[in-house]
């Protein structure tokens, strides 16, 4: 037996008389690099994966069923738990779905508060993502740098709404609280500190040779594949597709701000590889800072929340709204039957597609690269399972 070829396209010499067989490995549900509770069944030939089959559902908390029981206002705190790494955009998605059902217009100051909250949320989420990418492939120190900054951002968001993780900041028709006194000054001071740190962070890790070797050319997703699998957000843009819901399906007050939509360039390897997805997040942080400066500088006066009746009964109908969450285009499908409780809520999240594509992407990768792929797709397990 020689020149034994396996179906992953890798030629390998097997010494005569030695049998090879497929190995089934279990990874998770408790594994330090799976970012939450999720499990893979890995079919491997030596160090090479034939495929990694995701097994999800460990974090299924039936959030959509809860929505049918608690009513429109009452569901808002639960949306925090859909994607607890970046809860602000989940708040906004649900608020926008309800507002679309009932035709409510949010006051301009309320929209500005939302943008400020969401962009700080995006910074915090991307920081965790890029920090964890480093940690997953063996660089522990950059994670501590990223988390240090995330803590300051949590301080800022705490000033805004009193919570550091599950914010429950937004309401149907606006936001719960106005910007506190002195907040704008402190937020801008923080941005002054944070923006140069992005460059420092790049020098620390992004251009490190080992780091690049671990990410470049790994798990390449061409743009057509990304679209067919409905990859969204930084994962889609990493494949070179310039599409951002904030810019292309404008909502809230985003059209009033100037910002770029960074896409992958294939600078260190192939377009759409793990490194491109990582770099898109780094560059998006700069854009978020730009949006924040404009929003903080142009806060209009007025109320932050519209008058919405306590018993909220939107007319019967269906809406599907999309917001640009930290993990991309998040779809909120809400069906009202005219009562005080939604008939159906479905949340289609960015991580759901990113998780589904892994079985396809893992074919022929090294086992050690699986964690790099999970990290570069920025999968947050609660968002997959809801």
């Amino acid at each position, binding site marked *: 037996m020689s020149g034994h070829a396996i179906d992953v396209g890798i030629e390998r010499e097997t010494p005569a008389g030695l049998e090879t067989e497929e190995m089934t490995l279990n990874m998770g549900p408790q594994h330090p690099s799976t970012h939450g509770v999720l499990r893979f069944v890995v079919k491997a030939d030596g160090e090479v994966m034939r495929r990694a089959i995701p097994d*999800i*559902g460990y974090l*299924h908390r*039936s959030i*959509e*069923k809860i929505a*049918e029981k608690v009513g429109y206002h009452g569901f808002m705190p639960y949306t925090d738990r859909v994607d607890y790494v970046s809860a602000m955009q989940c708040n906004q998605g649900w608020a926008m779905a309800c507002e*679309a059902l009932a035709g409510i217009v949010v006051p301009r100051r309320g929209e500005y508060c939302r943008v400020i909250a969401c962009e700080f949320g995006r910074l915090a989420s991307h920081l965790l993502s890029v920090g964890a990418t480093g940690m997953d492939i063996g660089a522990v120190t950059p994670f501590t740098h990223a988390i240090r900054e995330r803590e300051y951002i949590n301080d800022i968001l705490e000033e805004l709404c009193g919570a550091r993780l599950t914010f429950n900041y937004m309401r149907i028709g606006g936001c719960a609280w106005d910007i506190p006194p002195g907040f704008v000054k402190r937020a801008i001071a923080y941005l002054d500190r944070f923006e140069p740190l992005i460059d420092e962070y790049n020098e620390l890790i992004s251009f490190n040779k080992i780091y690049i070797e671990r990410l470049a050319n790994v798990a390449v997703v061409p743009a*057509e594949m990304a*679209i*067919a*699998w*409905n990859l969204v957000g930084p994962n889609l843009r990493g494949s070179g*597709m310039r*599409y951002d819901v904030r810019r*292309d399906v404008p909502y809230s007050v985003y059209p009033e701000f100037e910002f770029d939509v960074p896409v992958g360039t294939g600078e260190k390897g192939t377009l759409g590889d793990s490194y491109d997805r990582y770099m898109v997040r780094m560059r998006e942080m700069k854009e978020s800072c730009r949006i924040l400066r404009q929003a903080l500088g142009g806060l209009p006066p007025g109320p932050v929340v519209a008058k919405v009746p306590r018993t909220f009964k939107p007319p019967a*109908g*269906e*809406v*599907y*709204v*999309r917001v640009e969450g930290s993990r991309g*285009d998040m*779809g909120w*499908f809400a*069906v009202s*039957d005219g009562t005080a409780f939604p*008939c*159906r809520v*479905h949340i*289609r999240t960015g991580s*759901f*597609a990113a*998780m*589904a*594509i892994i079985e*396809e992407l893992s074919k022929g990768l090294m086992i050690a690269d699986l964690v790099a792929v999970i990290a570069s797709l920025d999968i947050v397990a609660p968002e997959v*399972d*809801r």
Partner: protein
Amino acid sequence: MDAAEIHERLRGKFGNAVEPELKDGAWPAIAVDAPMVAEIGQYLRDEPGLGFDCLSNLSGVDRKAADRIEVWYHLFSYAHRHQVALIASTPRPDPVVPTVSHLWPIANWLERECFDLLGVQFTDHPDLRRLLMPEDWVGHPLRKDFVEPDEYHGISTRRESLLKL
């Protein structure tokens, strides 16, 4: 292309399998015959000018009052930046819809989720298993008449109130 024109073309191609009414809104919706949904999807994806390359979402809705289950397909085209939703309505006691997982690979999981939570059978699906609930779970939790079991493998789903009032 705007939704009225897409609707017009679907009517021209599939006749009465496409309802004459167009549900207007930010994401216009067209009701179609459930058994035809895969063919219509194929046409929407492959026809030049339509080019719906992305299935943005697939949701099941239990319309208990009408004794129907609706499956909503939110389609989006990155090439043309237009959008339309298809609604396939199927009888509630025996909901069956053909799969579209060969058209958009993400439908594989979305259909598994819909089967898991609402019990919709997707014919010709390559791997129609539960996705979120445990494999041995009984029933489909998002059905309006689903009754939560008292226990699961000896773990009670009930709990006493901590407040002794």
